[in-house]
């Protein structure tokens, strides 16, 4: 069973092609990396998979549902219910504590549960920093809060955009270990990165160049 199927997806801005005829699948519980240099179209593909943009043509089947046919409002619901987002720049609400940032995802998903949010922070090793504001946390800690927020609603797919792009080596290792844990627990993960080191953690790496799939690497071989 595939959690994601991308079929002949193209995205163009006028005469400029950002993506051209992309085809790929992600099996349930699998880890896929999308790698490529700047301008290769990896962020565009991530936005389409993450229900934040629509392709010009083609279809994207997420958990059995064609998301290209949905309205922006419906896409918001799918994003809320099925996707956990992790950003390169963390994007935490600056005036909410680490705990409240995690609870924010619960609030827009269903119901706020402080105990569960604390457990999520404990899982990323930040239980003691729950009451701290983002500015009081290091970059690595902020990214771990972001991961806790992404997994709090038990998403079908975790979508991470350059999750270690702003982190030092030690924090990169911490974050990648967390993603490994989630993967081992059965989470489906897509990581968008320009780093081969990060990409090789996945089972499969899709290499994009000029909006097209240049290579598919099986990292298990």
């Amino acid at each position, binding site marked *: 069973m595939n959690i994601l199927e991308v079929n002949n997806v193209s995205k163009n801005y006028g005469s400029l092609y950002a993506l051209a005829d992309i085809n790929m699948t992600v099996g349930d519980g699998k880890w896929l990396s999308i790698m490529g240099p700047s301008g290769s179209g990896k*962020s565009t593909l991530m*936005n389409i998979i*993450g229900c*934040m*943009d629509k392709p010009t043509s083609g279809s994207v089947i997420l958990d059995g549902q064609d998301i290209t046919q949905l309205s922006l*409002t419906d896409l*918001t*619901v799918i*994003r*809320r*219910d099925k996707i956990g*987002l992790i*950003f390169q*720049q963390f*994007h935490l*609400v*600056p*005036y*909410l504590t680490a705990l*409240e940032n995690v*609870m*924010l*995802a619960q*609030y*827009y*998903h269903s119901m*706020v549960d402080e105990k569960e949010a604390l457990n999520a922070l404990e899982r990323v090793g930040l239980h003691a920093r729950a009451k701290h504001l983002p500015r009081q946390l290091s970059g690595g800690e902020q990214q771990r809060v972001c991961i806790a*927020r992404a997994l709090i609603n038990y998403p079908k797919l975790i979508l991470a*955009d350059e999750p270690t792009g702003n982190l030092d080596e030690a924090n990169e290792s911490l974050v990648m270990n967390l993603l490994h844990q989630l993967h081992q627990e059965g989470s489906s993960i897509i990581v968008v990165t320009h780093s081969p080191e990060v990409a090789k953690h996945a089972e499969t790496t899709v290499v994009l160049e000029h909006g097209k799939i240049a290579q598919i690497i099986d990292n298990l071989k």
Partner: protein
Amino acid sequence: MFGKMLLRVLTRQKKKSLLIVLTVALGVSLATSMLNVMFDVGDKVNQELKAYGANLNIVPKGASFVSDMYQIDDNNQATPSQFIQEDELVKIKMIFWAYNIVDFAPYLSVTANIDDKPVKIVGTWFDKHLIIPTGDEIDTGMLAMKSWWQIDGSKMVDDNLHGAMMGETLAKKLNLKIGDEFTIVAPKTQQIITLTVNNIFHSGGIEDSEIYVSLPIAQKLADKVGLVERIEVSALTTPENELARRAAQDPNSLSRNEWDVWYCTAYISSIAYQLEEVMPSVRVKAIMQVAESEGAILQKTQLLMILLTILSLVCSALAISNLVTANVIERSAEIGLLKALGASNSAVAMLIICEILIIGFIGGVIGYFIGVGFAQIIGYTVFGSTIEPKILIIPLVGLMVLFITLLGSVPALRMMIFLKPIDVLHGR
């Protein structure tokens, strides 16, 4: 969670919130002061306009139109039905709109001779102290109603039965000064009375050729003791409108509801109607030029106030719009994140609207009290008295705050709705 976010947003951006509070407060204070003055200006302007004299004229039902129109003095041929009983005058202060009757004065004129020259002698109340059967006590008379007259000499009192107020033109013609004595002879009754010039006045009208005396003297000269021929009434009135004009033509043409509204409103026609109810033997004529001038001045003043109120609200809404839009632009990454996490447009809009409404409420409360203060300054500066704050203004201010804050938030909300998470989350 929503309340927590709201509280954090408000406490985090104190300076921006304070700016919006000040903007709302400024707009609301101007609007509050204008509305308070507008609701009170009717009475104030009316009181000011009372300086221009009476707006109601009471005449006996039997008085001939010809004498009324051409000022023919045929008192001695008149029948008693052409006069009003002096003791009926207290009834003027016993109608539903008694407190709107500011002043009134009776008049009885008679032609007498001074040095064989005919002169019009007018008897009146100068500043009469009256005890009304309801227990109220009032001072009323001609002096209060002719406030624009320039009068030389000591104040004329009603008990002075030997003094007279002489018009400037007549005094010059007879070569009389204050303190001089003169003798008048009523040819029809052969009454002879010697009076002293107590005052010389300048009215700018035909009254400058007349003599004003206490009412009993004129009654004695005309042999009409206890009678007067007309009464001038100065009343505070509501500006005339279509309903009042229809009622003035024929009160019976009104429906029951219209009649109730008209009767319970201080239109000059309804006051006239009520005066005729308590004094069945008289006709009450509205001096429409005065009433309509009052109405026109009042309507223009109120229109000016309304325009200023609208202008101040529009300015506030524009300022709020700029501030809230700038705030949304500054927080676009945060708003994009909320949307990425699954917040619907309505959920984010609710957060922004609640923020602005709370800030607007605080600004509104501050603005209201400043506005009441402004109104007092306007009251003292323009009218020399306080402006009574109206309770009705409070819900109006509430609605205004709601209106300007929501109106001011529209561009920001529109921007928020079209904001896509991808536009802000990738640092573009």
